[in-house]
């Protein structure tokens, strides 16, 4: 079985981000808690935004913004549940 390149993700990612992702549920990689992103704890400032699990304080995600780019790190989330 051969792998595909990242272009193959376009369909699923466009579905994922077609709506407000803060209504999606995410599973914390630290404690396993599943909760909507809207309930996470967000620390805004510089150098970037830090999103922490409301149950265990684990870092769920970071967002770094420059004038022309955006970096999303979701390494503290094992999965996101998206309502179709």
């Amino acid at each position, binding site marked *: 079985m051969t792998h595909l390149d990242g272009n193959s993700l376009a369909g699923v990612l466009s579905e994922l981000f077609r709506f407000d992702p803060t209504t999606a549920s995410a599973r914390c990689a630290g404690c396993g808690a599943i909760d909507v992103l809207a309930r996470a704890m967000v620390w805004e400032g510089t*150098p*970037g935004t830090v999103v922490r699990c409301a149950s265990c304080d684990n870092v769920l995600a970071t967002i770094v913004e420059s004038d022309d780019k955006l970096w999303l790190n979701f390494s503290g989330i094992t999965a996101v549940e998206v309502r179709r």
Partner: protein
Amino acid sequence: MLSAGPTPHIDTAEWEFSIVPESGEPRTWSWEQLMAEKIEEVTTDIHCVTHWTKLGTTWRGVSLDTLFADVETSQDYVMAHSYGGYTTNVPLDELLNGQAWIAFEFDGEPLDPEHGGPARLIVPHLYFWKSAKWVRSLVMMADDEPGFWEQSGYHIHGDPWKEERYW
């Protein structure tokens, strides 16, 4: 580095700072032991990655030259770890020769917790996210590995004169 989470409040009676070389045997200072080291006054400019620079800031602290004097290591990179979980990476040769301090006073006042007190790393020649607030240890590394912000978009080195802001 501004706040990436709740501000840790560490009593100096509980505070410890360690340098951990590849032997795994840390060299550790209590607050009293740090205060007994040679204390230096530092006047320096600091550079935030968000385009501001503050000229002529004054700090008091202990040079990392002093703290590394009895540490044996052949590794070239350091990961700074903070109370609260923050990490940032710096090459060892950019922490020595009068380039970095463990600082506990700013502009003549003890560092308050919001600004990284009781003690923070300062590495003024790099962008200020490298100057880890609430520093608790420096762990030697064989290779340069990214810390908290360096994994998430910020430059692995962070030299303001080269505008090393992002990947």
